[in-house]
């Protein structure tokens, strides 16, 4: 067992707006554009929500996750309108965890 202050290779992702369960906007600074589909799609798959990928967007049966990649930051918006409030909240939290900590 080891104890550290930070997760190795973690991405900075801040919640800038939380409008309701599964309705959030995040902001992530970075040095090079991120492949958010590669980060977020496996997390949806794991939760038995197979995603459909389009440029800058993933959709699943709960709703959509879309992002804009600027040179030094990304803005990610989760919009889930289907499923229970608890499910939307939990899936959104799992995606945020993946955005911060998932390893590619």
């Amino acid at each position, binding site marked *: 067992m080891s104890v550290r202050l930070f997760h190795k290779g973690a991405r900075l992702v801040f919640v800038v707006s939380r409008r309701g369960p599964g309705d959030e906007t995040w902001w992530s600074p970075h040095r090079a554009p991120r492949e958010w589909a590669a980060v977020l799609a496996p997390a949806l798959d794991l939760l*038995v929500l197979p995603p459909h990928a389009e440029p800058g967007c993933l959709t699943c049966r709960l709703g959509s996750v879309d992002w804009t990649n600027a040179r030094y930051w990304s803005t990610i918006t989760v919009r889930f309108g289907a499923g229970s409030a608890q499910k939307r909240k*939990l899936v959104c939290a799992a995606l945020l965890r993946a955005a911060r900590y998932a390893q590619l």
Partner: protein
Amino acid sequence: MPTVSETIDIGAPVDEVFAFVADFPERATAFIPGLNRISNVSTPNAAAGQTWDYEFNWFGLVISGNSRCTKLERPSVYQFQTVTGNPSTWTYRFEPTDTGTRVVFNVEYDVPQSQLARFAAEGALERMNKERAVEVLANLKGLIEE
């Protein structure tokens, strides 16, 4: 060893609930509070002996270690142990019911070995582990049910 045990009924077939919990260790980050990363899963298929690394956020510190699946009897029992740090054994039992599945979740854990740490941590650990067990099951129910 101190133990916490909690039970919940989930409205889904026992095979589905078992598979959700046991098939991919990485999935646990979605329903175990504070568990941020699972990596280096040793085999693609869930089985006794499968190992993985975990990273857990504990009051702002990142605790990392290794776990091993110690029992997998589909679709009734799934058990794993943390094999580094303070030992703990996590057991999920699944029983079919008229409306879905009853999940009985049990965690056996050791308290820190030093007397000072034990004095400071024992009561808080018990309370925290009980609250965490309740949250784990509520999260599972929320993720599996529509």
